[in-house]
């Protein structure tokens, strides 16, 4: 009780102080920001190495931990893709490559890249690092839970990697894990492999729920004074909406994992109908394989947007900062993110047009899917209109953004092919699909990740990454990745089915041999080029140019911390007070081409700023 009274007093003290600061000047009114409603949180400051760097409760350190773990899984996924391309481009060259291995590599590559790399990187990595800084909080609201979230993820990754070493190897059921084959002999890793995969996914969901609740509540409850929802950077909007999707979508993955585990271990028949295998009828009956697909894609489609929405948000901020221009149509951008997020729960069965579900669903899901194209297209228009009459720095960050626009529009357009139900019929399960989703949710988000790394590395490490190396990294990656996936669509037109260990004795498909060799060579080069970044980071940490404060002249709060890199608690003695949106670039009448969010109106009286 007495605590509460103390708190109220301190809040009053704070607010009257703010008023006093400007009392007697005409600026008092225009600079007024509502006082804080809740007191600041107490933080646990680690002192030992273990509490500072291992079991750490600082969201920034947790973000870096998530980032590094995700990058580790990404490198594993990359190596697996090399092995697959080796088989597809040059069949028989690698003697150890059996069909079993090939399917195991396909499966692990897919699952790692979608869940353990992209999702963990965007939400766990960028989310943890940026949310508290961008909304002006000292940390996540539940730092201890946040720490456990990372360690659950770490255990999930360890379990996943352990499946490489169990008898039978990892599961080779495709990343969609469709039953019945996922848990029946005839699919590689149908014993321990699939079980470890299901356990790992369950752990991931549990860990992610802890993190996700943190992101949501921090964004909703711990924003600093003046940081209204419509003044948040789009990065935060993207991560926020993606986390809402994750909270609603991951439970479907969790229950389907649990149900399949029961089918496997206890012999229940959630997904298993009567099955004849090697002349014998198995002891299953009455289950539905299509039910699993509905559950999986109810998770799986929002999952696409769980990756895409943070990328949309981040790229909006990067483009705006480096084009020195406000993001065009901010409110439209926010509503597009929220709208896309909501719609993403009504389109899942567009992955199932030819799955054998009732074909009349096709009409509904084709319509909802193509409706999503509208807000998505609006976002693309707004990005390019932001460039229009801007003052565009053509640096490494901007290059990645431009690369994103090209690959994302390309992949979005092919999405209209596949979403349009009858057009999907000839193209589904072919390389057209592989090319489409790699372009739109592999390469495009990767472009954003890279842009974000070059953009925020100076904040995280206090040093600027080397521009020259960055440009080499970009051009090899962009040109290489584009020449992998653009021609791959045409394999789909020929009719080449995906998930084929070996293909090319079909008469009309022999023409694709040359292309496959080319694609494989490009894949080797693009993969190798990623080590330029790792080299760049190591070199920069040792000898890089110090970044100083706010090297990009950005407005959002993360660049206005008391120290660079920000310490635990982020903002020193006083939390920042926000007076404007983060996109006041090149405002007419202002002295410089940017006005930070913390600048009160009284300091920029003669400017035509946006009243947000």
């Amino acid at each position, binding site marked *: 009780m007495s605590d509460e009274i103390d708190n109220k007093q301190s809040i009053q003290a704070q607010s009257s102080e703010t008023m006093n600061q400007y009392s007697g000047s005409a600026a008092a009114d225009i600079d007024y920001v509502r006082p804080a409603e809740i007191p600041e949180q107490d933080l646990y400051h680690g002192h030992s190495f273990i509490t500072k760097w291992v079991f750490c409760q600082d969201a920034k350190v947790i973000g870096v931990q998530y980032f590094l773990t995700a990058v580790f899984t990404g490198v594993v996924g990359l190596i697996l893709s090399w092995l697959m391309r080796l088989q597809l481009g040059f069949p028989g060259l690698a003697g150890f490559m059996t069909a079993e291995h090939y399917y195991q590599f396909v499966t692990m590559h897919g699952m790692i890249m979608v869940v353990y790399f992209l999702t963990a990187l965007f939400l766990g990595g960028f989310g943890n690092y940026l949310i508290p800084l961008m909304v002006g909080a000292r940390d996540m609201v539940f730092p201890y839970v946040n720490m456990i979230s990372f360690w659950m993820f770490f255990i999930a990754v360890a379990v996943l990697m352990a499946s490489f070493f169990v008898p039978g190897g990892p599961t080779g059921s495709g990343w969609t894990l469709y039953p019945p084959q996922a848990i029946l002999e005839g699919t590689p890793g149908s014993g321990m492999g699939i079980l470890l995969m299901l356990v790992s996914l369950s752990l991931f969901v549990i860990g992610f729920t802890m993190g996700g609740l943190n992101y949501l509540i921090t964004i909703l409850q711990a924003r600093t004074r003046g940081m209204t929802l419509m003044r948040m950077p789009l990065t935060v909007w993207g991560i926020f909406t993606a986390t809402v999707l994750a909270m609603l979508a991951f439970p479907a993955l969790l229950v389907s994992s649990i149900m399949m585990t029961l089918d496997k271990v206890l012999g229940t028949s959630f997904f298993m109908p009567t099955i004849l295998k090697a002349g014998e009828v198995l002891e299953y009956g009455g289950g539905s394989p299509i039910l699993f697909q509905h559950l999986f894609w109810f998770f799986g489609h929002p999952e696409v947007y769980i990756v895409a929405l943070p990328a949309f948000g981040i790229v909006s901020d990067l483009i705006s900062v480096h084009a020195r221009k406000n993001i065009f149509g901010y409110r439209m951008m926010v509503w597009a993110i929220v709208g896309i997020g909501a719609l993403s729960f009504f389109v899942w069965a567009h992955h199932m047009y030819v799955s054998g579900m009732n074909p009349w669903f096709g009409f509904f899901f084709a319509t909802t899917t193509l409706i999503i194209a509208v807000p998505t297209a609006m976002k693309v228009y707004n990005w390019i209109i932001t460039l229009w009459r801007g003052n565009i720095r053509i640096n490494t960050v901007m290059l990645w953004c431009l690369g994103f626009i090209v690959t994302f529009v390309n992949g979005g*357009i092919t999405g209209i092919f596949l979403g349009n139900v009858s057009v999907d019929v000839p193209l589904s399960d072919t390389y057209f699909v592989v090319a489409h989703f790699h372009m739109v949710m592999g390469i495009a988000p990767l472009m954003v990740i890279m842009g974000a790394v070059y953009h925020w590395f100076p904040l995280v490490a206090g040093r600027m990454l080397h521009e020259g190396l960055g440009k080499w990294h970009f051009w090899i990656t962009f040109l290489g990745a584009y020449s992998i996936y653009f021609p791959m669509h045409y394999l789909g037109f020929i009719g080449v089915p995906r998930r084929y260990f070996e293909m090319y004795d079909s008469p009309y498909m022999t023409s694709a041999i040359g292309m496959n060799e080319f694609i494989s060579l490009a894949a080797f080069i693009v993969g190798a080029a990623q080590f330029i970044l790792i080299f760049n980071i190591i070199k920069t940490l040792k000898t890089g140019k110090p970044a100083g404060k706010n090297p990009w002249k950005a407005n959002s709060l993360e660049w206005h911390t008391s120290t660079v890199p920000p310490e635990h608690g982020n903002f020193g003695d006083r939390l920042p007070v926000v007076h404007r949106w983060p996109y006041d670039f090149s405002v007419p009448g202002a002295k410089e081409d940017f006005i930070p969010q913390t600048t009160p109106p009284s300091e920029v009286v003669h400017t035509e700023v946006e009243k947000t």
Partner: protein
Amino acid sequence: MHVGIIFFLVILGSVLFHIFTPWYWTDIASNWQGMDDTITLTFWVGGGVFVAVCLFMIYCVFKFSYKEGRKVEYKPEDKKLERILTWATTIGVAALLAPGLIIWNQYVNVPKNALEVDVMAWQWGWQYRLPGEDGKLGTTKVVNINDENPFGINPDDPFGQDDIMIQSDVLNLKIDRPVKILLRSVDVLHNWYVPQFRSKMDAVPGVITFYWFEPNKVGEYEVLCAEYCGVGHYAMRGTVIVQDEQNYNQWLNEQETYSELVAKQNKLEIEKNKIVKKIDLN
């Protein structure tokens, strides 16, 4: 400067690749020309948008690259422009969706005169069953399947007796006669797919799924499994031979019906019993 040029070359290269590509459709051999046409339409509209967006971006890179003190437009919103773009996109998307839905409507409504073909899939192979003179397929059950009854036909079902059984992965079809493919699987998911026919559907254990097409070109086509079904997936092939009426009927007459198979097996059984008896007598 060079940045804009490289991006421009990428876009130009994409367009040229599309025009001059040696890799494109495998020649169509069914009635689903409408699918190809919708794809072509989507290519024009979608490709146009892709090129337009990228060229606009490239123009901006050329025109507005960083110069100290450049005057930058400050215009957070433009309601009118946003409205125009929203409506234009909506109309474009609707124009693509409409033909897609019309063709889907044809795809899910099977013509009355379609020949029903039972396609049975397992790890890893296919076999087929055609209706006999009664024009109807007998019902089946997975648990009925054994050496004497390879399709699991219900022995009590009168429609099943004259069913024509093709215990081979080669199926013959008559040209210009619609075919309704009835898919079933005894173990895991499969998908009976002939690229030239454009159409496909998963075979799901426990249910019967369907699709239809009308082969319109005489020839031999490869069947591919298009839904991952385990380690033998890539080897799960079959053949379809599309024939004119005369050749087709000749082939059909050579096939065995279920009752013939049962009779043959009963005869074998009797012969075997005789031999056993003889041995006993001796």
